[in-house]
């Protein structure tokens, strides 16, 4: 399996552990990732709230490069994933949009490059049997809440590869690791996303609401597939509990870190030391 890899800006800073663990897991699963040469930012939320033409053109710069590579794209950031898929949809749906994008990026792009989140690639394209063969360490006894957030399944016409209100792809991945995915009602509720910096009080309230439900449902850690979900639940966890009520410390792991542990990869290859809320006490119990 070969994919054009779109890392996205977060993977160079706040989510370097996602970058490292995704690459390590793909290597172990024999998924070849080739970085899109000269990739650039997808524009994320600030582009689509500011300039509709820019919001389609920035992802198209990268989609067009993958078209030249002749490969489907995979990415691990839910926001990058969403913006690339939405841009494709807009370009496919309208000749006017396709022509406009062509004028802006200076090259024609037909909207035909496939874009998949790595979660989709591992669970649905590679499949549980192929992964099960490589699992070396069953994470038995670990109780995990799968948190999807918004952009992995919304807007569904453009991005969903699963039921948008009740997705289960991450639960399938957790089952592969031998851990137990608990049921909980907030898995597609928003953490406040890009309000993280400008309205951290709102994000604190939303993160606390999510974390207290995680605990009420009996989970001891959360698994995520988005750098912003991870930051809002992990980096902002101490502020959230200080402002809205005490909760036990809850480690927030990327799906690639959880899977990497099950694949028997060493912790340093998974960037576990980057977590603000340490996963060490949890892992010592497994």
């Amino acid at each position, binding site marked *: 399996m070969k994919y054009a890899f779109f890392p996205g800006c977060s993977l160079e800073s706040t989510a370097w552990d996602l970058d490292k663990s995704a690459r390590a897991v793909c290597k172990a699963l024999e998924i070849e990732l080739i970085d899109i040469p000269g990739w650039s930012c997808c524009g994320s939320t600030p582009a689509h709230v500011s300039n509709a033409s*820019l919001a389609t053109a920035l992802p198209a710069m990268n989609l067009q490069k993958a078209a030249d590579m002749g490969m489907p794209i995979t990415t691990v950031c839910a926001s990058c994933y969403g913006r690339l898929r939405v841009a494709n949809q807009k370009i496919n749906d309208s000749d006017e949009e396709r022509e406009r994008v062509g004028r802006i990026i200076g090259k024609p792009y037909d909207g035909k490059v496939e874009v998949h989140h790595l979660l989709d690639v591992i669970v649905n394209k590679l499949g549980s049997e192929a992964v099960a063969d490589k699992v070396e360490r069953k994470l038995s006894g670990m109780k995990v809440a799968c948190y999807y957030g918004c952009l992995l399944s919304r807007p569904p016409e453009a991005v969903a590869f699963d039921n948008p209100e009740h997705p289960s792809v991450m639960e399938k991945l957790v089952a592969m690791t031998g851990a137990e995915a608990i049921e909980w009602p907030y898995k597609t509720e928003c953490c406040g*996303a890009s309000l993280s910096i400008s309205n951290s009080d709102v994000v604190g309230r939303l993160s606390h609401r999510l974390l207290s439900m995680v605990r009420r449902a009996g989970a001891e850690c959360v698994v995520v597939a988005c750098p912003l979900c991870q930051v809002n639940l992990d980096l902002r966890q101490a502020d959230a509990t200080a402002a809205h009520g005490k909760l036990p410390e809850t480690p927030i792991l990327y799906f690639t870190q959880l899977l990497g542990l099950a694949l028997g990869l060493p912790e340093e290859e998974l960037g576990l030391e980057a977590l603000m809320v340490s996963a060490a006490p949890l892992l010592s119990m497994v």
Partner: protein
Amino acid sequence: MEETLTCKNTKLLSEVERRSGTKVSRCFQCHKCSTGCPVAPDMDYMSSQVMRLIILGQEEELLKSKAIWLCASCEACTTRCPMDIDITGVMDVLRMMAIERKVAEPDARSKEFNKAFLTSVRWHGRVFEAGMMAIYKLRSKDFFTDMDKVPKMLSKRKLALWPHFSRVAGEIRKVFKRAEEEEKKR
């Protein structure tokens, strides 16, 4: 005496519908969007009220509102609307109109964040978070929030101190310029 509320000013409604490509006039106030909205408790107008104000032509009320800057673009409203209204897309258009008409709520910090983020992308082709934060702090004058996170993030190597330039940074600057010109033609 019976009085019927008729909407005489449909200018706002037609502009929002044209620019968002969605039929706001279909809204029948079921409030499903507001019920599922994570930031509804923080807003001055909830999303269903925003839809109503558009239909009633209350441009000033809306473009000066806090609500449009608190929308987190989580798309729950758009996904659940029984009338297929792209409410998140409508919020995008209202924010653009507020900036174009220079009436945006002065304390809207997310507006400054968006600006700082896009400035960083325009310069480097990618987001350089430390530089973006510096621009945001200067623009929002919110100097102290989150400064306690900096040492923690540095110790975890989560804050790059040097920008990663995309190889196509020069091209990206041109993309910004052309996109701004194209946007004016819409």
